[in-house]
């Protein structure tokens, strides 16, 4: 099992990448021509944007470094944010605890033992006021990793910014708010598929009309990949999901150019370097074409595949954990070679625990090192013109188109997610991958080759803080006692009424948040109307 790989010993065995594309030993200009030619390459900053959405990319501004952070309560999360900013981080990516993510208050019985465990606990607007205290929301853009409860937390962010005097028409920031992928992987759904999508569309419509620079959705191929999808499926399914949201927004009477420029994406960067780079280049060209040709977008901003590239939880392993630092460095290299605007790296201890401050700093320094020492920002799309990369880019784009057409033919992504078909498909692939890992067909250093007898040695664990959890509950009780209950009740009644009538619920949620109604209270009103998702179990 520890024998080094000797692929050359079997030259007749085809080399096939994860996306199912056979790799030739050598590429020439003929391969590029045979795979569709050079029509989709173009120049950076110009349609079809295969080479990058900006003409100068990192020459003008290196990628935004946005590590995923948040734990315990708002005060301690605020301290960690300030630590990361002081160390040169240029954006924030907020992690919420599971009760917040699924719309439960910290004092809900189901939240016991989970408050502040995997992210920061948020019950009311007060928590946001504390978490972002002293952070310049003009300079540091904030990304909220929230999905099931996204409408409420977006409202909290907007109200918090408004109260601090920021102009909503100029406010930037992002919410993940991609509920369709939560049904495939990650699992923080609350409502059934249809009202869940309606809520996403409500946020898109509300932001387009009131906070037009705010990015209300970041469609995540990332977690679909983590659930077992291959790189072309990752991107193709993400595009199917983005189209579902776009269709909903168009049905509200918005023009595509009023909102498409504020749709963003989140993709994974673990895997084969060239396959990953080709994936991003293929995706940029395909998304631009979908927006232009299928949706009739005219504004180039609508055609941009704006994204955060994240690398990449599933690539990291518990064995020989220091190797995860090296893996992270290669993932960051992939992100840089791919022209991602924003990047986050999973930390080396993340296979075990919430990252320590030390591990966070190493991940941040890994990206800074690429910027400062390795010349990654000197020129745009440096792998362009490689016959291999251009051929692969063409082939992967064709594969993505086929997958999208297949989803459309089977009734669309929302339907396939509602009946569990996509979940069954990616989980079958995850199982196939596990079997290949166990047989050694897929190699993983430290796992199935180059293993070592390791001393029982694990990174420091992030302990659960029961005291902080109790303080969070006490804080919520204080707010409930101090707030104007009549204003809360009135606002919550409007949430119910608007949900029932099918109106956009965002204005009512904004009012409820202003009155310090809690995440759990608002969610409960929506559940009364929309019901809860029942997970389809299919194997």
């Amino acid at each position, binding site marked *: 099992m520890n024998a080094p790989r000797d692929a050359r010993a079997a030259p007749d065995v085809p080399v096939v990448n994860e996306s199912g594309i056979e790799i030739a030993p050598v590429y020439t200009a003929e391969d590029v021509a045979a795979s569709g030619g050079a029509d989709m390459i173009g120049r950076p900053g110009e349609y079809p944007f295969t080479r990058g959405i900006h003409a100068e990319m990192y020459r003008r501004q290196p990628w935004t470094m946005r590590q995923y952070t948040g734990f315990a309560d708002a005060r301690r999360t605020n301290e960690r944010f300030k630590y990361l900013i002081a160390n040169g981080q240029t954006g924030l990516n907020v992690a919420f605890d*599971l*009760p917040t*993510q*699924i719309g*439960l208050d910290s004092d809900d019985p*189901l*939240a*016991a*033992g*989970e408050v502040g*465990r*995997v992210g920061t606990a948020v019950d009311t607007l007060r928590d946001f006021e504390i978490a972002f205290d002293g952070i310049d929301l003009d300079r540091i853009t904030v990304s909220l990793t929230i999905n099931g409860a996204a409408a409420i937390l977006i409202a909290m962010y907007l109200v918090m910014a408004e109260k601090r005097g920021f102009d909503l028409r100029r406010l930037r920031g992002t919410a993940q708010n991609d509920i369709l992928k*939560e049904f495939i*992987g*990650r*699992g*923080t759904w609350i409502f059934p598929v249809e009202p869940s999508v309606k809520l996403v569309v409500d946020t898109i419509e509300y932001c387009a009309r009131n906070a037009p620079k705010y990015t209300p959705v970041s469609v995540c191929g990332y977690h679909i990949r*983590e*659930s*077992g999808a291959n790189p072309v499926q990752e991107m193709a399914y993400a595009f199917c999901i983005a189209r579902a949201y776009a269709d909903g927004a168009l049905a509200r009477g918005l023009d595509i150019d009023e909102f498409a420029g504020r749709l963003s994406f989140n993709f994974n960067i673990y895997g084969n370097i060239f396959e990953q780079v080709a994936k991003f280049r293929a995706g940029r060209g395909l998304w631009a074409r979908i927006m232009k040709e299928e949706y009739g977008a005219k504004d180039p901003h609508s055609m941009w595949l704006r994204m955060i590239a994240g690398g990449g939880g599933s690539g990291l*392993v*518990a*064995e020989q954990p220091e190797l995860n630092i090296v893996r992270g460095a290669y993932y960051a290299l992939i992100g840089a070679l791919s022209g991602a605007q924003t990047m986050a790296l999973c930390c080396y201890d993340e*296979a*075990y*625990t919430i990252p320590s401050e030390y591990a966070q700093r190493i991940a941040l320094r890994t990206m800074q090192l690429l910027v400062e020492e390795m010349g990654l920002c000197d020129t745009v799309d440096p792998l362009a013109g490689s016959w291999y990369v251009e051929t692969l880019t063409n082939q992967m784009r064709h594969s993505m188109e086929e997958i999208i057409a297949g989803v459309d033919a089977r009734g669309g992504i929302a339907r396939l997610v509602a009946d569990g078909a996509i979940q069954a498909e990616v*989980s*079958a692939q*995850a*199982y196939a991958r*596990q*079997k290949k890992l*166990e047989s050694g067909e897929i190699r993983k250093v430290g*796992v199935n080759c180059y293993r070592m007898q390791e001393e*029982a040695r*694990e990174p420091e*664990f*992030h302990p*659960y803080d029961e005291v902080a959890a109790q303080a969070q509950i006490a804080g919520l009780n204080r707010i409930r006692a101090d707030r104007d209950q009549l204003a809360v009740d009135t606002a919550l009644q409007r949430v119910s009424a608007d949900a029932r009538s099918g109106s956009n619920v965002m204005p009512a949620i904004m009012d409820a948040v202003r009155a310090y109604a809690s995440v759990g209270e608002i969610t409960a009103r929506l559940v009364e109307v929309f019901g809860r998702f*029942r*997970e389809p*179990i299919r*194997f």
Partner: protein
Amino acid sequence: MKQVNITATTTEPPCRPRTVPIRVLIAKPGLDGHDQGAKVIVRGLMDAGFEVIYSGLRQTPEAVARMAQEEDVDVIGLSSLAGSHLPFCRRLRDLLQTHGLDDKVWLVGGNIPAADFAELKELGVAGIFPSGARLAEIAQFIREQVK
């Protein structure tokens, strides 16, 4: 809330002395949404010849105990990746004892720190399979434990 599907049957008993297949409940405790691993285990155990029942996400200890009883399983496997396994298992132990279910072979897998092994064992967990455990190893363990 409860969702139970019997997902596979087998024609061949996995263990010679038994005439019926071993029944395994794979459950996702608490609010954790990481189900890739649990689903891989479900498929792996199905292929290994077990009858497997998958709970779906967000199960309470009460729901897991009830499913174990109603489905008359031999094995209860919990897959936990978000760190709340200890409080969950403490509560589940009480329920298993109260309902006379402590003869079930109890397994825990996922993101389980070595520091928690001793307490889990004390609670009655027979096998702990942290991330990285192999499917064959888990199947073998179950065959040895279930009499």
